[in-house]
């Protein structure tokens, strides 16, 4: 056991280095905007850039819409599949995995092709329509994570028996969904939402090819044209996602009944 512990620490340290060395290097670099001393000039420059605020705000908004749409799509589907169509689970799971194997580029080309200004549904003709298209694309990219998160969440409870128990106590579908299913997958939904958020914030290809003012293209543009600001930007993006993750951990800890599942 002793040696196992030492090895685990070494492995842990190696993992940390693997992930954090680039971050630390970047953070150090981002502080060097002023010659000869460390300063937050790069951060001030980034945060002061109206383009930053515009693109970041746009991406956050898109992320929120994507999350809401994703939850509405995924939670009832997963519940219904588990309850009534358990045999279909492999098929549904396969479908939700497709976005991982269809490169985003393919999706975008398909969208542009289908919904261009000369098509039957000219979504790309208006900014609103393109936003909608972008949201569909994001939902698709996030689907595997959202589905898996909710599915894993529902796996920890015996959906069928709990539903039947509630029914025999007189509860209808709405009561069952609201008082039993949702509270039990809340943490899972949050973690799915968080992953969605991270994906949308960092996504480049969809936004760039649909030509929307999102944060991903802005980051790439900065990377190509500035010296210290990209590093500051990356650190900011990392801190934001990290904060989200901590928030989820907190929520998980606070909900007493999930503690059993964590052991």
């Amino acid at each position: 056991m002793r040696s196992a512990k030492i090895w685990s620490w070494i492995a842990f340290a190696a993992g940390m280095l693997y992930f954090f060395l680039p971050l630390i290097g970047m953070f150090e670099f981002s502080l060097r905007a002023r010659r000869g001393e460390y300063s937050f000039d790069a951060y001030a420059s980034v945060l002061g850039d109206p383009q930053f605020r515009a693109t970041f705000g746009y991406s956050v908004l898109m992320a929120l819409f994507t999350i809401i749409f994703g939850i509405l799509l995924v939670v009832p589907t997963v519940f219904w599949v588990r309850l009534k169509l358990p045999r279909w689970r492999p098929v549904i799971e396969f479908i939700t995995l497709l976005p991982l194997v269809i490169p985003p580029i393919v999706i975008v080309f398909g969208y542009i092709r289908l919904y261009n200004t000369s098509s039957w549904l000219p979504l790309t003709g208006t900014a609103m329509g393109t936003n909608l298209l972008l949201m569909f694309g994001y939902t698709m990219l996030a689907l595997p994570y959202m589905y898996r998160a909710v599915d894993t969440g529902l796996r920890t409870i015996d959906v069928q028996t709990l539903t039947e128990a509630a029914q025999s106590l007189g509860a209808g579908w709405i009561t069952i969904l609201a008082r039993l299913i949702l509270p039990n997958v809340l943490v899972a939904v949050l973690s799915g939402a968080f992953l969605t958020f991270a994906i949308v914030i960092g996504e480049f290809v969809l936004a760039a090819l649909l030509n929307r003012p999102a944060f991903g293209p802005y980051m790439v543009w900065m990377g190509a044209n500035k010296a210290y600001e990209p590093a500051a930007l990356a650190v900011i993006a990392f801190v934001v996602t990290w904060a989200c993750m901590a928030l989820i951990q907190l929520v998980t800890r606070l909900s007493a009944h999930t503690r059993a599942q964590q052991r």
Partner: protein
Amino acid sequence: MAFLEIARLEKSFGPLRVVRDFNLSVEQGEFISLLGPSGCGKTTVLRMVAGFETPDSGAIQIEGRNVVRQRPNARKIGMVFQAYALFPNLTVAQNVGFGLKVAGVPRREAEERVAEMLALIGLPDLGARYPFQLSGGQQQRVALARALAVRPRVLLLDEPLSALDAKIRVSLRTEIRTIQQRLGITTIFVTHDQEEALSMSDRIVVMNGGIAEQVGTPFEIYNQPTTKFVANFVGTISTLVAEVEDPAGGAVRVAGQTIRLPRPVEAPRGGRIGLALRPEALHLGAGDGRDTMLPATIADVQFLGSVIRLQLHTGGTTVALDTFNRPDMPPPRVGEHTQVSFAARDVIVLDS
């Protein structure tokens, strides 16, 4: 008409006829067990009563009304599941009060009922706990309280003890039976464990292949099984092969001895029939009123605690014999020669 009346119930899953022509009348306050091996249709009958399955044909009448078309949440039937099925996000008190809240019972009244139920199951202080903080036995008692809190017309128990440890299983079955009798609630209990069915029930329905093979009190089922399946599934039997000497007079011959059975035998003279004997009907050595005695050799000794089960070679076969442990007399040894006796009235004659 009985309180709960099931008539000509049929159910198939695809090509498989799971329940066939099932009929049962349950009186108010009765404790009925559906006993049978897995796949015999007992759980499907229960789920049709609960409303989770719809019968292909037949009727289920509660208090004279057919409930077959009623949705499960309108039937006022309590159910306890093998897997406890407590709501993990609710405390024990919230679990027990769930049905009351759904039914719109005023808060104060609901709280009183919850406290009453928790007292009934002997866990008055655990209301604030979450299910994962309870042992399996406690969880199943909470599930029982939850089902009873809404005062259902019928209580359905779907193998509620199968997931528990041996010791808790035994103590909880006494507890369930006591609560059922105190409340006088009509109960249907599904189990594959014959000891549970025998010890808890007013009547037992032994099921096999979707059919109710025999319905009767535990005493009847055990001592007067009507089919080979029932005799074998409930309890242990040993079968001696006998040659019929006088069918009308009930005289048969085993290992050179003539036994006069108390009833005629339905087989021709010279035919062979099986004489089934329960292990407690056999006695080591001579015994009061045990008129038949056969030489035997001890083949195996199993010390089970209060009972010692012996396997003996006799009459060309192996029979099981139960005898009580006696602190002053160690059990016999394998290979010893002895005699077994039994009374003709204890013989169960099984039709081929």
